[in-house]
């Protein structure tokens, strides 16, 4: 058994990832000082956790991610997966065992969806029949119809569909660790919300460990078991569970990054149908909203309504519930707490 078989070699469950004082310098400035893209990064990700790296563009998130599968080698420090230093493992073998979704999706334009998803299973020598079955399973898993999608080329898919296939391809051999670099960046907020929900479902079901990069604090809050907020220069300002981040930002920078208008931003991408509505009363309350109305617009209307309550109806006009200020507040509770 070689070193790489040992690493990530077990059948089920997520891996542990540890960064130990990892730094990466790409270049030196004019006066000879090294410029750090990542500086002295230390963090631990437990099995089955989603660790989100969030921060403004250029703060070293992608660099941190790529050091895990050795696309970039650290200048100093160590990265351990299940206690094994990645620098001691053959990079090709390492990469085949880590699911990787790159920022620009990176589907192979000359291969069909099925062939794209089969990439890693083929590399590690799965039998053809097993690959075929797995491909169909994965297409269905990310919410698409295998029969109509497997023989298409990437150019025949929408941006959102491509991102789903990118995620499916990375999960093909159910790797114990996934690296995802802004995997839902290229889709509109509604589709994004749906992809996020589907992904959370999957991740929980499979118990994968995930390192997830985003520049969107809302996405970080929603997906992260823990969130690492990066600052310019490649240092971590805070590494905490989302609720903690919202309630007790460690520095002014984090407080600003989390943002005082987050509650409203979040409401804008939620539909009334996503809320836990109160039961319909016989009286028939206030203004009438379609279930597809976004919550921020509904809130604005409620502020002007005499009784601060409205009736939500489905597409055929049948009332399905009542929305009140309390309904909305409870949907953004952790955010509300941070605003006190």
């Amino acid at each position, binding site marked *: 058994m070689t070193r790489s078989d040992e690493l990530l070699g077990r059948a089920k469950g997520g891996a542990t990832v540890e960064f130990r004082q990892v730094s990466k310098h790409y270049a030196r400035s004019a006066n000879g000082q090294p410029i750090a893209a990542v500086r002295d990064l230390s963090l631990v990700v437990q099995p089955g956790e989603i660790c989100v790296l969030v921060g403004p563009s250029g703060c070293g998130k992608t660099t941190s991610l790529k050091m895990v*599968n050795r*696309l970039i080698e650290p200048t100093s420090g160590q990265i351990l997966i299940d206690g094994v230093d990645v620098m001691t493992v053959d990079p*090709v*073998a*390492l*990469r*085949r*065992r880590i699911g*990787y979704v*790159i*920022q*620009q*999706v*990176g*589907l*192979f*334009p*000359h*291969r069909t969806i099925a062939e794209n998803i089969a*990439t*890693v299973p083929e*590399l590690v020598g799965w039998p053809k029949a097993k690959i075929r079955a797995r491909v169909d399973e994965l297409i269905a898993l990310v919410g698409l119809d295998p029969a109509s999608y497997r023989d*298409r*080329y990437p*150019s*025949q898919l929408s941006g959102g569909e491509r991102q789903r296939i990118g995620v499916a*391809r*990375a999960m093909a051999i159910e790797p114990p660790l996934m690296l995802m670099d802004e995997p839902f960046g290229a889709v509109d907020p509604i589709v994004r919300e749906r992809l996020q929900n589907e992904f959370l479902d999957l991740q929980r079901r499979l118990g994968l460990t995930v390192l997830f990069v985003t520049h969107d604090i809302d996405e970080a809050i929603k997906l992260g078991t823990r969130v690492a907020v990066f600052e310019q220069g490649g240092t971590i300002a805070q590494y905490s569970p989302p609720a903690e981040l919202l309630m007790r930002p460690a520095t002014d920078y984090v407080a600003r990054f989390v943002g005082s208008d987050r509650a409203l931003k979040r409401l804008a991408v939620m539909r009334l149908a996503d809320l836990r509505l109160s039961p319909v009363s016989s009286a028939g309350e206030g203004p009438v909203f379609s279930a597809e109305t976004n919550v921020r617009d509904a809130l604005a209307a409620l502020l002007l309504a005499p009784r601060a309550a409205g009736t939500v109806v489905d597409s055929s006009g049948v009332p399905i519930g009542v929305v009140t200020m309390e309904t909305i507040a409870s949907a953004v509770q952790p955010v509300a707490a941070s605003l006190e």
Partner: protein
Amino acid sequence: MTIQGEPLVRFDWIGNNLGLIGERLWEHIFLTVLAVGLGLAISFGLSLAIRWNGRLYLPITSIAGVLYTIPSLALFALLVPFTGLSILTAEIGLVSYTLLILTRNIVGGLEGVPADAREAAIGMGYTARQLLLRVELPLALPVIIAGVRVATVTTIGLVTVTALIGQGGLGQFILQGIQRFFYTPLVVGAVLSIALAIAADALLVGLQRAVAPWTAVKR
């Protein structure tokens, strides 16, 4: 220049020389395929060298460019003292003319591979060789074949010139026709070499489509 009473095409001559016509046509195809094949192999080697070190691009394409600009007749004439009136002389000249087009297209085709596809391939555990053979070359193939089309059509034209050094396939009919003021072989040589160029081009267009089904799909 017209000779009184001489028809443009004498079909009895064609009928009597069918065997020879077939032979020369075959020779023409052979010289072309050999030249483009060798040119492709050499250009591929040069392209890999350029990929390995990008600074080689300028010197390699400059030399190939100079070769390309030498008038064909002059190049063959210069080679004769060294390699004689041989197929070697013909092929050295013909291959030289393909290098610029083929090297440019191979390098350009490989450079045109989307960076995200390349990065995804490496990130999923392709070795450098698998990356080249399974991702980069297939994606570069349409551009490479476009280069092969130009090189092939150019070479078919140049082969007629090698008739002057005793090779030249269909070119020998053209030469013979001019020397003897006898139109029939001249017309046969010219028409067949044009037809050959058109046929070869059509064949390669078909190949281009066949190797890149993803470019033909409806969006």
